[in-house]
């Protein structure tokens, strides 16, 4: 079907082929107008660049058209339903983009005297306040650049606290449920800990007995996601927290799924010691095709003193920044990023939180949970739910419903693309076979969910009717169809090179 209607140009109506910028180079063109400066009086110490860089020359209209055209090969939340489980793809309000671009923030230099940035520090402090209240936690580290760095930040605080207590050498093991996201074990390892996996019970939660049997004097902490990666609330969480604390260890909570509980359940009331917050998930800062994110970390009292630099304090003359290991920063384990954190993301997140308010945040998380349970209820007889009972903000199915169809989870997801939806998360979490994890978020209307349910049911019927080929050939209607990932990994071509022959790595 793909190429039966071939055209002369290769374009297909609104699907426009677009070469790389390097293939559109024409010396003499330029997209900016700067004078050519004479450098006869220079201070470059004889280290001037010799020869061209090799960048292509394009004019402004070509550049605009190029990036507009390639943008049209992307699917975003603005385009349609994006039920990507564990990623919280919710609406990104544009007012937050507008606010982040106010010159009073965007044109602010990080090294200006703090006397000239009181409004920026006030904004950081206000954003921090909202996050602390939502989580009911006494302290927060704002500087982590993303969720993964937030994890690192939190685990470093735990390590620093244990070392301060003289137990650094003794506590070398971190417990991580087998359903955890890959960053959890990667982070624990990055902090020098060995990772010990905790099995799940048949309800998809941490097996409490197995967990207790692994808890010993050499355990530094547990890294637990709640709601967990199966979209389920860890109902034993308070018991887990108590046991962790009784054993002298710390409780790291992965806050990736805060969207299920914000405004309704405060993580601080569950006994956690620290938790990163993905502002790009729960608080709607745009994912941007893979960042920038922001991962502030709320901290309990025993960890607060070890928070990374810098942080905002209320000083004698208004707000101030603690940038060094002295005074209030004496016990800090140091700096993890340049400057002060993802300011542009704090603005957007605060805009989101203020717009919703305490009532709206509660309503948003409730709607997210309601939407997920609606999908679960409407699809539970069509697909195969992995666990019984209600879910939180995302619902998990395994591939049992595709048994004997010769259609895999991947094939099914690719067919969803032709129906105009972004696929659900596939093959994660690893604890169920051929996982399909759907997270609708509060941004979706009932009409959208109904259309999606209709499509899933229709495709399931098609798979069961024996039409596996349709799925193996999907997607058919996208700018590119399935790509050869094996070839890409065997012979990596990671940059364009002159002469039309791309450089082989």
């Amino acid at each position, binding site marked *: 079907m793909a190429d039966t209607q071939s055209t002369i140009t290769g374009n297909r109506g609104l699907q426009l082929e677009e070469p790389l910028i390097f293939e559109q180079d024409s010396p003499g063109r330029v997209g900016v107008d700067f004078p050519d400066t004479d450098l006869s009086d220079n201070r470059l110490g004889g280290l001037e660049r010799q020869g061209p860089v090799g960048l292509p020359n394009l004019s402004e209209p070509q550049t605009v058209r190029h990036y507009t055209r390639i943008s049209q090969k992307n699917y975003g939340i603005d385009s349609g339903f994006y039920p990507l489980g564990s990623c919280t793809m919710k609406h990104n309000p544009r007012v937050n983009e507008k606010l982040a671009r106010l010159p009073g923030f965007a044109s602010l230099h990080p090294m200006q005297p703090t006397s000239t940035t009181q409004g920026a520090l006030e904004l950081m402090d206000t954003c921090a306040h909202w996050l602390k209240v939502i989580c009911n936690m006494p302290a927060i580290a704002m500087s982590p650049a993303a969720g993964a760095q937030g994890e690192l930040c939190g685990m470093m605080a735990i390590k620093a606290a244990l070392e301060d207590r003289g137990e650094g050498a003794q506590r070398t093991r971190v417990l991580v449920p087998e359903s955890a996201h890959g960053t959890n074990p990667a982070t624990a390892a990055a902090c020098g800990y060995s990772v010990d996996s905790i099995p799940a019970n048949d309800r998809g939660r941490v097996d409490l007995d197995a967990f207790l049997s692994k808890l010993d004097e050499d355990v530094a902490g547990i890294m637990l996601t709640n709601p967990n990666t199966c979209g389920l609330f860890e109902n034993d969480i308070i018991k887990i927290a108590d046991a962790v604390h009784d054993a002298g260890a710390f409780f790291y909570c992965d806050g990736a799924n805060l969207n299920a509980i914000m405004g309704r359940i405060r993580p601080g009331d569950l006994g956690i010691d620290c938790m990163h917050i993905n502002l790009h998930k729960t608080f709607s800062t745009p994912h941007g095709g893979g960042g920038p994110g922001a991962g502030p970390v709320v901290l309990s009292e025993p960890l607060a003193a070890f928070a990374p630099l810098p942080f905002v304090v209320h000083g004698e003359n208004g707000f101030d920044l603690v940038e060094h290991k002295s005074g209030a920063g004496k016990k800090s384990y140091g700096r993890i990023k340049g400057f002060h954190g993802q300011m542009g993301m704090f603005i957007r997140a605060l805009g989101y939180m203020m717009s919703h308010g305490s009532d709206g945040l509660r309503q948003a998380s409730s709607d997210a949970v309601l939407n997920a349970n609606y999908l679960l209820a409407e699809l539970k007889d069509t697909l195969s739910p992995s666990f019984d009972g209600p879910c939180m903000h995302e619902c998990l199915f395994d591939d049992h419903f595709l048994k004997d169809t010769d259609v895999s989870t991947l094939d099914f997801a690719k067919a969803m693309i032709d129906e105009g939806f972004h696929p659900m998360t596939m093959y994660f979490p690893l604890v169920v076979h051929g996982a399909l994890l759907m997270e609708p978020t509060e941004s979706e209307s009932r009409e959208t969910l109904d259309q999606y349910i209709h499509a899933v049911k229709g495709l399931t019927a098609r798979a069961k009717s024996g039409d596996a080929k349709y799925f193996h050939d999907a997607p058919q209607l996208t700018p590119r169809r399935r790509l050869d*990932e*094996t070839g890409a*990994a*065997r012979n990596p071509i990671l940059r364009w090179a002159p002469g039309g022959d791309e450089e082989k790595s």
Partner: protein
Amino acid sequence: MSTKYTKEHEWIVVDGDIATVGITNYAQEQLGDVVFVEVPDAGKQLSQGDEAAVVESVKAASEIYAPITGEVTAGNPALEDAPATINSDAESAGWIFKMTISDASELDDMMDAADYKTHVAGLE
């Protein structure tokens, strides 16, 4: 010359005091298209169970453990440019490394071809 198999789906061909190690055909089928193999350098000392090599497919990476204790005498240089050899010829040209045998008794508990066949049949 005899061939032994481990539960980790490695094969070991013993030729005098040198063992050649690779992964079984069953293992390569489970992994799918192999895209990269990290082989150990000659001279590396390994104890039984140490991580010796890594075989990567697009979506998975599997550690290959030293089946016995000894010193690496060679990694298979052909795998650098042609990792797919593991898929096409896992139990011969797709060998991963050769090593010395410090303690031949470590080979005693391993399976022979018939036992391994039964073992794999039990997994399916």
